[in-house]
């Protein structure tokens, strides 16, 4: 991992079009400003990891289809009439 020391107000540029700036430091918290090209996905690490884990769990099992959860099984579920 590349390690750089930056002061308040300073930033770093990553590749073309991504810039991260230190906007504030308060105690153990650092406030970052991020500039990136449109459509670049930016996530907090911990939430990104959780979604990835949940997607992997959802895709588990390679053969067969699981039982339909009763919430959506035929007879219980009925298409809502759109009135």
């Amino acid at each position, binding site marked *: 991992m590349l390690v750089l020391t930056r002061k308040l107000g300073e930033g770093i540029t990553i590749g073309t079009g991504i810039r991260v700036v230190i906007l504030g430091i308060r105690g153990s918290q650092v406030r970052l400003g991020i500039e990136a090209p*449109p*459509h670049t*996905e930016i*996530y907090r690490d911990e*939430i*990104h990891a*959780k*979604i*990835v*884990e*949940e*997607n*992997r*769990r*959802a*895709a*588990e*099992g*390679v*053969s*067969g*289809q*699981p*039982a*339909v*959860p*009763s*919430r*959506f*099984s*035929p*007879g*219980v*579920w*009925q*298409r*809502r*009439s759109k009135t």
Partner: protein
Amino acid sequence: MKLTTTRFGEIEVPDNDVLFFSFGVLGFPEVKRYVLLDHSGDTPLKWLQAIDKPELAFPMVPATDLVEDYHITVCPDDLEAVGIESTAELQAFVILTIPNGASERSTANLKAPILMNPTTHVARQILAAEDYPIRYPLSDAQPAKVECAG
């Protein structure tokens, strides 16, 4: 096109049905082409089946079939990414996690829905700014509204 899948065997899908995830689904960035398959029987359950990875498929339901007032704020950037101007045209699906042999403990990921542009077939998994759970137990869902005939 002909498709080989581990769950559904060999299937034939119209070329026009291909959905494009330019960023993939989180955790599977290299898989960008999917099709949406109906689960058999009278159920809103669908499968997001990867075209180039036979074993990769996600069970999903339209978000509002689970939570009637499901409401998310989609940032303009995400809208533009799927090539749409108004959220009214968007379809939102939530991915279900159905534990093996314990479908009663199924959960839905309300936090990271799949948005689809039904016209261009461009899709993207987004992160809802709203405080929705990643594991919403299906047993907590409001009972489905059953409209009786007559």
